[in-house]
């Protein structure tokens, strides 16, 4: 099956070029077909992925020039994030079907290009190939916000670009240093290279600058609300669904395994910023009057749960962090779709302009309720599994941070239910709201797969945990030497025969 990854990159790339020469309708159909083809290939990829097999699968390696290689290959983490990308893409195309009427071929090309770059980022095994894909992702997003965005799109797109570029330049410098030190650009080899402890801190900080912005972590999060508010619906979906996951993937692929000592000694920075983010952005979300801004702020809070999990140095934390990434990708994508659906009808994101939608849009109310509850982290939905594992993992490291971050479940419930109440419940106050029609067949076709995936992840997360289990173990073996001691440390029981749990030193 080697070559499948290149094929998954080639299909949307060729389609993107072809789109530019087609009519609006032709571009739509071509984009849909191309993304669906990638979805099918994604299915093949998943079914062929050997759980418990070699760490790197579907490996391709073609030397290009110098030390630069066309090296692709995936492990469980990459597999799951690729699945998330190919799953969301056709939904994005569908969401733009009617709402985008301006420069459709270019729009579809931009989206297909985004897909190429995202899959490439997750599949790249060469450090510079990764960098190109990783940073390349900026360009189509910059265009999508800047051309098809809302009224204040130029400010938002520059803010987005400035923030993310600043971090990535530092990362490039760090990468050059690493290649010089380890004499290889291959990520699997770098993963097993022990960098000197004193250099790790600087390298870690350089990577952190880039990933923290992408995540985004507090206080470099302010580009996200603006970008979301201005982006078209599908842009928001892909931004929240996949682009925000690049930061987490970066932490998981580079920061933690390559610089374990630095990760361990700087863990307070990650935890501190994350704990602040959970409380700070949740409270900010509570007072928003713009639906998209509210969900954007909630994303920052959710991503903070990812970062603490990834830096928990134990299996629950890392698996939990990954699960939150996947769950949040589905749920926040779905929530942005829900906002987009009513935005298409009323052309406003002001919460106070709505109310009483349960009366004339009952189907919409059901879907929105499901995704609201998933965002709140109700057990049985995807986000619960992730949040629970992540927080259970972090409890082994710091009870205080756990307490602070778990307040997110209270605040999350407050801002999401408050949003839902103002939009869906109550009386129909406005005539134009009363005239809104319930979901069309196309819209149900967009939301239903997301709903199914959210429930599947919530009820039987084993499908998602199994592919990454081996990779987490490998990662843990590597970083175990730097594992920070927890603050709980129960003293052993008096009766020594009883098996005590992990964590007592």
């Amino acid at each position, binding site marked *: 099956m080697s070559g499948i990854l290149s094929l998954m990159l080639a299909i949307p790339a060729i389609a993107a070029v072809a789109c530019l020469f087609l009519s609006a309708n032709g571009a739509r159909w071509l984009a849909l077909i191309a993304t669906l083809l990638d979805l099918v290939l994604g299915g093949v990829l998943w079914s062929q992925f050997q759980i418990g097999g070699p760490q790197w699968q579907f490996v391709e390696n073609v030397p290009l020039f110098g030390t630069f290689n066309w090296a692709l290959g995936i492990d469980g983490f990459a597999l799951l994030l690729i699945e998330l990308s190919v799953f969301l893409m056709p939904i994005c195309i569908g969401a733009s079907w009617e709402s985008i009427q301006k420069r459709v071929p270019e729009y579809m090309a931009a989206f297909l290009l985004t897909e190429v770059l995202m899959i490439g980022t997750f599949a790249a095994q060469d450090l510079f190939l990764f960098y190109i894909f990783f940073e390349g992702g900026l360009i189509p997003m910059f265009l999508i916000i800047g051309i098809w965005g809302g009224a204040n799109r130029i400010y938002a797109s*520059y803010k987005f670009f*400035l*923030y993310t570029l600043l971090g990535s330049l530092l990362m490039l410098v760090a990468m050059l240093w690493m290649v010089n030190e380890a004499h290889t650009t291959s990520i699997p080899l770098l993963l097993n290279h022990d960098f000197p402890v004193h250099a790790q801190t600087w390298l870690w900080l350089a990577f952190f600058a880039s990933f923290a912005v992408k995540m985004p972590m507090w*206080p*470099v999060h*302010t*580009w996200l*609300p603006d970008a979301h508010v201005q982006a078209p619906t599908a842009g928001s979906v892909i931004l929240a669904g996949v682009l925000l996951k690049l930061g987490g993937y970066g932490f998981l692929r580079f920061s933690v395994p390559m610089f374990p000592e630095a990760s361990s000694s700087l863990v307070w920075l990650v935890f501190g910023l994350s704990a602040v983010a959970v409380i*700070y952005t949740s*409270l*900010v*979300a*509570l*007072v928003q009057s713009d639906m998209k801004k509210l969900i954007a702020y909630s994303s920052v809070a959710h991503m903070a749960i990812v970062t603490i999990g990834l830096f928990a140095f134990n299996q*629950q934390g890392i*698996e*939990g962090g990954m699960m939150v990434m996947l769950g949040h990708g589905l749920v926040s994508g779905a929530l942005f779709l829900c906002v987009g659906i009513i935005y298409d009808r009323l052309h406003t994101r002001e919460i106070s302009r709505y109310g*009483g939608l349960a*009366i004339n849009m*009952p189907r919409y109310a*059901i879907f929105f309720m499901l995704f609201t509850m998933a965002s709140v982290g*109700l*057990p049985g939905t995807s986000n619960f*599994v992730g949040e629970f*594992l992540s927080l*259970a993992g972090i*409890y082994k490291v710091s*009870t*205080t941070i*756990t*307490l602070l971050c*778990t*307040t997110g*479940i*209270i605040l999350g*419930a*407050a801002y999401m*239910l*408050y949003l839902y109440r103002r939009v869906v*419940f*109550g*009386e129909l106050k406005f005539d134009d709201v009363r005239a809104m029609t319930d979901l069309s067949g196309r819209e149900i076709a967009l939301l239903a797969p997301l709903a199914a995936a959210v429930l599947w992840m919530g*009820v*039987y997360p*084993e499908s998602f*945990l199994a592919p990454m289990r081996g990779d987490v173990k490998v990662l843990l073996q590597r970083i175990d030497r730097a594992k920070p001691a*927890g*603050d*709980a*440390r*129960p*003293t052993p*029981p*008096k*009766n020594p025969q*009883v*098996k*005590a*749990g*992990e964590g007592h030193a």
Partner: protein
Amino acid sequence: MIQLIVFLPLLAAIIAGLGNRAIGNVPAKVLTTGALFASCLLSWPIFIHYLTGGDPYPVTQVFTWMKSGDLDVSWALRVDALTAVMLVVITSVSALVHLYSWGYMDEDPDQPRFFAYLSLFTFAMLMLVTANNLVQMFFGWEGVGLASYLLIGFWFKKPSANAAAIKAFVVNRVGDLGFMLGIFGTFLVFGTVSIPEILAQAPHMAGSTIGFLGYRFDTMTVLCLCLFVGAMGKSAQLGLHTWLPDAMEGPTPVSALIHAATMVTAGVFMVCRLSPMFETSEVALDFVVFIGAATCIFAATIGTCQHDIKRVIAYSTCSQLGYMFFAAGSGAYGAAMFHLFTHAFFKALLFLGAGSVIHAMHHEQDMRFYGGLRKKIPVTFWVMMIGTLAITGVGIPGIFGLPQIGFAGFHSKDGILELAYASGRGIGAFYVGVLAALLTSFYSWRLMFLTFWGKPRWIRSEHIQHAVHDHGHDDHAHGAHAHDHHDDHAHGDGTGGYHPHESPLSMLIPLILLATGALAAGFVFHGWFIEPDSGERFWRGAIAFNEHLYHSAHQVPLWVKLSASFVMLLGLIGAWMAYIWRTDIPARFTSTFRLLYDFVYNKWYFDELYNLLFVRPAFALGRLFWKAGDEGLIDRFGPNGSAWVVSLGSRVTGRLQTGYVYTYAFVMLIGLTAAVTWAIAQ
């Protein structure tokens, strides 16, 4: 079989909920009610199996849920004696409430949705009580929270209902925070979340300490207290109780099922389920006793001066849950479960009876506008009477060799008080409990007297006036009956020309069945729940059962045994004096003790306090962080700042490019001079 019991309601909920208007009212109702009756019929044999001393059933594995390292959580259904008790309570009350709702919700346009929610709730509750691990219990815990949220806000057009729904969910989440920390801690300490394994290991952990928030505490105390915070949220105990009275915004059948008989007892169930764990921590047990006793008396005081019939019963529920908790804290888990069991019957009865009154009174809930309803709705009156006799604990104490016999609440409440007294730990709670029993009797009889005795005071009610004057296009059947007798001179008797009608049979049958339970459940079952020998055989280790405690409860002094009955009579006499004999007493009392009355009437100002402490600061902080933090600091000095620096720089350099040759020559000259100077200085 247990799969059928648990999953039939889920199936019915999904079909009725998604089908909604497409499948129509009657099929949705038949389906959900049928599923619940099937579950109920399957549950009783399990309970009887345990009553007759049968062996515990093995745990039924469904499939894996989460597996991460040594965390291994599966969907599994555990049915022991404790679960069996909960199964019959949940399925019986739920089935009857489904049936009752046929009549009560008859005119509602959204019936499939209502019945789907009810069935969904039942499923979640069943998942909670059959859980074999803490995480599945948490699933059920949150599932019932969701159903409760949806049902409180069922009439989603009402702002007050929406506010109450959100409040219920968010306050419960505060408790859930504790529950989650408890689960994490338990997993850290024991390396498992499986309940039987935890309970087996817990006794060996005595004396161990654990770090928590930077300090070190006794391990088991930390774990139990964290978990108990969860129980306090769900069971509306003091501090986290504020959501329960507001939850009365939901339809009355919901109040009966969720906010009286089942969901709110989940906290008690959790403490009983984890009783061997709680037994390892003295501090935790003391805390449980304290909270239980405090809630018990606190809620009872508020219950005495509410006007809304449902709110009186809601505070009464809160207070009765307090009894269950201090029983559990005293080590009398059997008695806690027994009171849970009997309370489910008589409190569901009282709520549904109140619903029947409300139905008859055209949705008027204020007791000040009731009165004289005894003859008008006799069946409702008699079942409410049985419910009142049950909650106030009427019966013949087992003294002088007399057989102990009485209504349901008599057996369980007396049992709790005697056991609390005998336990030593709960002796303070005993006195509080007796005092609360006095108040219980007072507010319960006050409710009865205000509603069913005296002269009709209906005319002042807006709902009634609305019913009488609006009869032409009234959508309520009983309202429509009013018009044929409507004439102006009838207003003189306080009826306002309104004629209440008895509820339909679908509502009366559940009432009568529950009345039977309220009458007999205590007498029939007390042997299994709280008698030393038969109790041991019945529980079979499902809860921590201290046989000695139950033995010593029989040896308590005579006055202890009589105290509950004595204060019950006192409360009855007090209520009779105040609301039948001299009806001006309440007014005189309130004007004399204005401050005290206001304090109690306003629910000890808890809502106001929380608003001041949490809600308003949260919004204020949110605005501060947003405007001053994000926009004022981060954006101003971050991206906008750097953009400003760049544009400033470009303006400055732009100004240098004047286009005049002499300017450039001048700059060159300065540069050359500087370079030469530097070269010479070297």
